[in-house]
């Protein structure tokens, strides 16, 4: 029973800086919750408050139903991976891992077994006899992760635990951590996990729910796919997805069936469902959003032509980024910049054209979004 619930949590730092502004969040028992948000949005602060390392300036924090505002970290049944690792410099890797277990009075044999298990899981069996200063950055980070997972606590707190690993190892670890979490749950020893990451793939694949933060407030909490396809506001829309969604100032023109958004003088016809919802916004400015993968570059590619709500427009090519299997095409539409993301084999010849040349793109308007022009930019289509 380790649900974590935050009620009106606030944090003011010693220098008067208010880092957290009344956060309300319920993390269910055994849930894998991911925190994402821009650098400095208070992810670590929240985690540290849950851990009990940072005093809580306001609000109520419960773990497993008990108010823990004033409980010491060790009484909260948590394990944590620190963003800066905080390994014990005077202990070998083995002892770094075993330390918590030894403190808990775990029998020696079991400590050994668990430490070696964790080391194997994290591919660092060969490092057990090293001191932290003899490790590379990624190795140290794995030790930090290992220190948390040997403990099998009620609540896992991960603060960017894989940031210093290479893609392959990272993908590996991602899967293993997820599996670990599932296994524990299946064994009936569900651990709640709070996982801070800035990696979209991690967030999308690991998180059962994702909490998007900005400047110490929650923007949206939802399952990954929902977050992606139904962002609550322009901030979330722009933050999730890479390359980020094209969100541009636009104006809704015309009524009902004939409604279009005007972006930089170019009219993009709205699908009927959208037009209806945006009726009240006619002739007003709003923010129009469309993800790069919903702009196709090769109109002649098979299957494109027939897509419903496809709007063809002519853009001015700026430059093309090759990313291996896919390509980002940057272009201007009526002076407004857009990015399209297409498969490397679906370029429709853009890469052959010079900068400034014209090219016809297709906007899949069925997947487009519209946000309030001001503030956080509420999603107008929800």
């Amino acid at each position, binding site marked *: 029973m380790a649900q974590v619930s935050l009620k009106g949590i606030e944090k003011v*730092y*010693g*220098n008067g800086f208010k880092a957290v502004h009344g956060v309300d969040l319920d993390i269910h028992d055994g849930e894998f919750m991911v925190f994402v948000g821009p650098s400095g949005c208070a992810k670590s602060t929240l985690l540290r408050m849950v851990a009990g390392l940072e*005093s809580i300036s306001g609000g109520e924090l419960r773990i497993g139903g008990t108010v823990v505002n004033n409980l*010491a*970290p*060790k009484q909260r049944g948590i394990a944590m991976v620190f963003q800066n690792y905080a390994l014990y410099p005077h202990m070998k890797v083995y002892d770094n891992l075993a330390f918590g277990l030894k403190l808990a009075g775990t029998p020696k044999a079991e400590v050994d077994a668990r430490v070696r298990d964790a080391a194997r899981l994290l591919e660092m069996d060969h490092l057990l006899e090293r001191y932290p200063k003899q490790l590379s950055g990624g190795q140290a980070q794995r030790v930090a992760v290992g220190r948390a997972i040997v403990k099998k606590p009620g609540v896992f707190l991960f603060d960017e635990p894989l940031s210093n690993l290479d893609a392959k190892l990272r993908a590996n670890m991602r899967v293993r951590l997820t599996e670990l979490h599932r296994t524990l749950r299946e064994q009936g020893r569900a651990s709640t996990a709070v996982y801070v990451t800035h990696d979209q793939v991690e967030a999308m694949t690991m998180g059962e729910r994702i909490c998007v933060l900005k400047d110490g407030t929650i923007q949206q909490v939802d399952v990954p796919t929902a977050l992606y396809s139904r962002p609550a506001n322009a901030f979330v829309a722009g933050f999730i997805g890479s390359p980020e969604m094209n969100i541009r100032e636009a104006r809704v023109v015309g009524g009902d069936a004939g409604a279009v958004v005007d972006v930089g003088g170019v009219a993009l016809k709205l699908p009927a469902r959208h037009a209806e919802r945006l009726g009240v916004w006619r002739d007003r400015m709003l923010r129009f959003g469309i993800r790069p993968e919903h702009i196709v570059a090769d109109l002649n590619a098979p299957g494109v032509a027939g897509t419903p709500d496809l709007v063809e427009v002519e853009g001015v090519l700026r430059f093309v980024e090759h990313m291996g299997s896919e390509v980002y095409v940057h272009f201007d539409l009526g002076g407004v910049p857009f990015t399209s993301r297409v498969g490397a084999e679906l370029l429709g010849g853009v890469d052959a054209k010079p900068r400034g040349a014209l090219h016809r793109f297709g906007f899949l308007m069925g997947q487009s979004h519209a946000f309030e022009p001001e503030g956080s930019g509420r999603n107008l289509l929800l």
Partner: protein
Amino acid sequence: MYENKRLGFLFVLPFVLGVLMFKLFPFVMSFALSFTEYDVMNPPVWIGTENYEQMLTKDPLFGKSLGVTLFFVAMAVPLRVGFALFIAHVLNFKLRGINFFRSAFYLPSILGGSIAAAVLWRFLFAQHGLVNIVLGKLGLEPIAWLADEHYSIWTVILLFTWQFGSAMVIFLAALQNVPISLYEAAEIDGASKTQQFFRITVPLITPVIFFNLIMQMVHAFQEFNGPYMITEGGPLHSTYLLSLYIYDQSFKLFNLGYGAALSWVLFAIVGSLSALSFFTSKYWVFYAGEKDHK
């Protein structure tokens, strides 16, 4: 956990008890004695603030002694602390045989107030001693270090400086807490070794520099062995530090009341200087383990 007030108090409890059991009575008694006339053989006689009045108005030797003491402290403390820091810095390098040097440099402090130290000092500063020989080589006039009232204090200051070992050891230990990566960063930033020392090392060990300054000040104000061994306070009281005066009054002249009064005046001086240092430390001492600046 660190907010747990009861736990914190529990941990300082030994100290609180220690003060109550072992410090309170001696302090109170010595304070009380400072208002009495007490010659050990006869019970103390209450004379109010007479000792203090005497000291401040009728005792030129007190003024002389205080002056000498202040000069001594002002010179000896920076010298000892500075030297200790410098040598600790040098000894922190990985050099062949450095262990030997570290021990060698601490030796004078082990010797403490032993006769060997006195013999050495007299040899160095005697009329025909090493220092004068060196001065002579440099074409300078020899100085009657031990006999000239203008120079004698320097023999004591230099002896105090010479026994910089414990301050050095503390600095050595402190140097270990400076993360190597900061030197690396500074090196990349183009800092020379000297600049690294002053811009990285020194700021990061300010807590310990501060400690050494305060403690050496406290010690210097109470310095006894040096002048007692080398000059016995002379010539012409030019090395007559307050501690010697207090000692003479208390155990030679059996004026324990007056000695106590002198001590409390010394206490007040050291105390206010320390308080001042603590106050200014906010502006120059950097504590990496403190939760917040300000």
